[in-house]
């Protein structure tokens, strides 16, 4: 079964790489199979990691008399079922209920978490080296890095600050901000390319070693 799995994986890999030549039936077969398999995988995981432990198990415990508190899970199940109102044109407005709950939940959970992780922590990380500078434990190059960090953050934010016209000093600050952004985008691009190349090497390694046994 393991050998069969290797052959299936290898043939599907080749089917997808055949797209590099041009669009063809082998690629289309693999592409459509990938869509079906991925959606099926997502459904199975969401049912077994969401619906079963958080709804069906407590509900079953309530039905068997183990713990009646599980009956409250009927409410989110009912709300979730309202999603299927989408299939009936007359009752399509009912879909707003579960969407409103999920959106409200997402907005509510985002505010404290984004404040904590993305604003307080990032600001702290930006100005923290100045504490070491004040204590005299930072090297000369460390001082340069700390100033560079603050300058980069301020200039980048200035570039995105549209409440004032970008003229005079603001224009120059935003120009420096663009330079920092370009370095950021260049780094992201470089990392993305290398990530994809690593995946390519891994797939070629699989084909040559696991499938063809050309590399031991």
């Amino acid at each position, binding site marked *: *079964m393991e050998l069969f*799995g*290797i052959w299936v*994986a290898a043939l*599907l*890999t080749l089917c*997808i*790489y055949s797209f590099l030549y041009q669009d063809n039936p082998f690629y289309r077969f693999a592409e*459509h*199979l*990938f869509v*079906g*398999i*991925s*959606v*099926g*995988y997502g*459904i*199975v995981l*969401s049912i077994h990691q*969401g619906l079963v432990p*958080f709804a069906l198990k407590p509900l079953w415990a309530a039905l068997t008399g183990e713990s009646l508190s599980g009956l409250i899970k009927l409410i*989110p199940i009912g709300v*979730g079922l309202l*999603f299927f109102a989408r299939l009936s044109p007359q009752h399509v407005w009912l879909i*707003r209920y*579960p*969407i409103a709950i*999920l*959106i*409200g*939940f997402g907005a*509510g959970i*985002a*505010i404290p978490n*984004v404040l904590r992780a993305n*604003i307080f922590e*990032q600001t702290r990380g*930006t100005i923290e080296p100045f504490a070491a500078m004040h204590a005299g434990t930072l090297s000369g190059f460390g001082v340069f*890095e700390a100033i*560079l960090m603050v300058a*980069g953050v301020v*200039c*980048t*934010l200035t*570039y*995105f600050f549209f409440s004032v016209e970008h003229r005079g000093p603001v224009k120059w600050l935003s120009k420096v901000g663009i*330079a920092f*952004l370009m*370095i*950021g985008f*260049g*780094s992201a*691009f*470089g*990392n993305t390319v*290398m990530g*994809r190349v690593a995946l*390519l090497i891994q*797939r070629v390694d699989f084909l040559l070693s696991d499938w063809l046994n050309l590399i031991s």
Partner: protein
Amino acid sequence: MKRQVPLILCFAFGIVMILTQFSPHSFSQGIYEEVISWTLIISPFALVLATATLIQTHVARIQRRTDHWQYSFVVFVGLITMVVIGVPFGPQHQAFEWLYTNIQVPMDATMFSLLAFFIASAAFRAFRARTFEASLLLITALIVMMGNVPVGDLIWNTVLGWLPLEDGASKARQWILNNPNLSARRGIILGVSLGVISQSIRIILGIERSYLGGGD
């Protein structure tokens, strides 16, 4: 009923999620965990509805005999196989794991590795060091890519071996990632986070209502 109740639900769930995160009391934490479990119960229904829409789309493709309609059957085969094995037996089942390991994982990695070719060809066509900013992006990407692979340090040590810095390519990459790149990212993160918070407040207060859709 059609618009006011969803707005009230959104407000209530948003406020509850904010308040419970600021209170460590066991009652508050109980509500917090209960609401999280509710959303984990509701979300799979959205996924099932999305799957129903996918099935509708492919059934329509088959009925209308549009281009490559035959491949819609391949989507169904993949989807049904995963669901029939995964839903009753769980994701730990041997057959489900086999499908995941030998079909989904290789195809996922291969699809993403395909991007290596397309990013490279797109970059070759689009990247021109015509301005200072474009040159900055190009040079940064080059340093990050070279610093990611051992050959980068080999070239550095061979060509720039007279410099007092050994393995300079990987060190330069790390310095770029930790300093100018991080400061640009922090600027972006701070800006985006302020946007997320203001948008979340607008949603909770019912000022932003686009998620309700059109109609009455």
